[in-house]
């Protein structure tokens, strides 16, 4: 960080000022002229929080995608279908057993198993044929989308939140001052979103630790760099491949449950989340977990702030971020050239 500051004094100053302004926007009570200019602070804080928590959801979907891509160079365009399937499984498990928490392992296991089948049946047969793999996964996603429409219909499914997580939570962020008494008003935010965001941060940190501090992680990273050399040293590379694919697919399934709790599960969500994870990994850099986190946060925030402050062009804002990244850093913000 100090080296960066020494090399780019101007950029450091700009970043520091931006961070300071952001912190002031978050913690101070907004003066009247600011409210008049860009609206009430509550709206701003809600957009910020929604953006961050949506970023957490995007991270869950995109990290599996980027992990699979980084290790095996497989573009799994059926990733959105795995997400949607996870959501449906989560809904029915939660409905039948009555335990919301049970939905997560169930979705993870079923979707991970499906991932193993995909890896063995499709990807191992077509190793090294990128384009063909991509086309096959597009075909799978078309078929899967229609099968799921057949099985579950076109309705919206919403996974109910358990009672101990439902309801708003008082946070320590000030949104304004009461006119009558002068008391501070604090932001209320749905507890379940905060918990889920914390969990996705936990999963992200866990994944980072697993990749960078354990033997399995070492195998995976070596596979990313040179899989042929790794298999020559006697590591069972195919087992690693299957494992990573299962884990990435399972994460998509878990994300489906999260998405079903946050928002809802319906046909078409598969494409929406596939696109979101595509844009996230293009922005963040293919195959990089920290990149996926950064990209997910940026896209989530852009989407939420866009939908609050210029609703017509929210999607275009996301797209502009992608274009800017492609134009100036084609390998992605955290990608390796």
């Amino acid at each position, binding site marked *: 960080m100090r080296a960066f500051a020494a090399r780019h004094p101007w950029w450091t100053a700009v970043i520091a000022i931006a961070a300071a302004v952001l912190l002031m926007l978050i913690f101070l009570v907004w003066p009247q002229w600011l409210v008049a200019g860009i609206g009430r602070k509550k709206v701003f804080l809600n957009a910020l929080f929604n953006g961050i928590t949506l970023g957490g959801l995007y991270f869950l979907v995109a990290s599996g995608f980027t992990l699979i891509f980084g290790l095996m*160079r497989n*573009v799994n*365009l059926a990733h959105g279908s795995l997400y949607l399937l996870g959501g449906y499984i989560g809904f029915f498990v939660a409905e039948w057993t009555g335990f919301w928490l049970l939905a997560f392992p169930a979705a993870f296991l079923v979707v991970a198993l499906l991932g193993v089948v995909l890896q063995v049946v499709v990807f191992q047969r077509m190793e090294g*044929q*990128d*384009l*063909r793999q*991509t*086309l*096959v996964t*597009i*075909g*799978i996603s*078309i*078929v899967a*989308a*229609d*099968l799921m*429409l*057949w099985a579950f219909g076109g309705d919206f499914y919403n996974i109910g939140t358990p009672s101990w997580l439902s309801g708003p939570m008082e946070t320590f962020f000030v949104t304004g001052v009461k006119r009558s008494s002068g008391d501070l008003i604090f932001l209320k935010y749905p507890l379940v979103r905060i918990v889920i965001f914390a969990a996705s941060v936990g999963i992200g940190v866990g994944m980072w630790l697993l990749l960078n501090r354990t033997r399995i992680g070492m195998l995976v990273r070596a596979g990313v760099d040179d899989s042929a050399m790794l298999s020559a040293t006697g590591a069972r590379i195919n087992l690693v491949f299957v494992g990573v694919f299962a884990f990435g697919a399972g994460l998509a399934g878990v994300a489906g449950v999260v998405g079903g709790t946050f928002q809802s599960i319906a046909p078409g969500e598969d*494409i929406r989340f596939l*696109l979101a994870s*595509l*844009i996230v990994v*293009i922005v963040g850099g*293919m195959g990089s977990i920290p990149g996926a986190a950064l990209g997910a946060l940026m896209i989530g925030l852009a989407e939420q702030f866009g939908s609050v402050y210029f609703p*017509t*062009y*929210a*999607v*275009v804002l*996301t*797209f502009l971020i*992608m*274009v800017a990244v*492609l*134009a100036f850093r*084609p390998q992605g913000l955290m990608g390796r050239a």
Partner: protein
Amino acid sequence: MAVFETRWQPARPAGGWREWVEKIPIGYWAVGIILLIMPAGASDFVLFQIFGWTFILGMIALSLMLLGGYGGMVSLAQMSVAGVAGYMVAILGDSAITDISQGWPWFVAIPLALVIAVLFATVTGWLAVRTEGIYTIMITLAIAAAFFYFCRQNYTVFNGFSGFNGVLPPKLFGVDWRGPKAFYYLTLFWAAVSYFAVVYLSRAPFGLALQGVRDNPRRMAALGYDVTAHRVAAYAFAAIPAGIGGILLTWQSAQISPGTVGIGPAIDVLVIAVIGGMRRPVGAFIGAFIYVLFKTFALDVLVALGLSGERFQLLIGLGFLLIVFFSPDGLLGLWDRWQTSLRRDPLTGGERGAP
């Protein structure tokens, strides 16, 4: 040697056109004549719905074939390019949405629409060629999605969710070009022009250089070719058949809306190109014909089999999956393999007729 022979060839003998007729394989003549005399016997539905639509989708898939087959860049944004042209005809020309449509005459609106489509494709290409292979698919998919959402949410120019209706072709030469026979010949004409333009391009220096770039970009760069410029130019050129297809598509249904340029149609174009085969331009039209037949008659077949007619997508998806799984070159690839197996000598395993 070859250069000298062609250069010193004597002038054509008097009966030159006869030689020219014989040089073209009989299959071409048969298909050409059948297509030309088809309106004499076929019903209006077949002409307008099946063949008109086949030629239109074929043109859009042809633009993808040009990029994917000769350039090695599979772009999912070709439907968006077609959509830009269709939208521009509706916006600059006439439609039922009179407070947006400018009502300019067709000889201004149509060329301008094509120019805008080419510009859009050039920008798309300029973005997409920064990446290679599978990345291109992802980026063009993202562009197609962004265009779809933009059209759906922009009301001032693109009229949002409902789009434009009442977009009709100009009554040129006093002909109603939406009449089944006239529309059939209109689409056939433009499909043929696009087809021969792409065939010509594939043999012209630019097309050969493009195929060189596809096979080995580094070597082409070392030979002094500008790889990026060739790729972007391919996007720009491919926009022309796609744009014409988009305009005709708009005229055929007399409307254009975000649903026309959605992610589903974008993937359908890829499905069409892959089913037909991306090796030769004719694959795009074969794929389009099969797709249209499927889309038109799958309902009846499914109902006859006792299944619900809504499972059309499943049928298309399974067919696509089978083809990419077993024959990545599509039906043309199957045909080629069958041809070589016919020519193979069962005893020696070599090609028959080969020394």
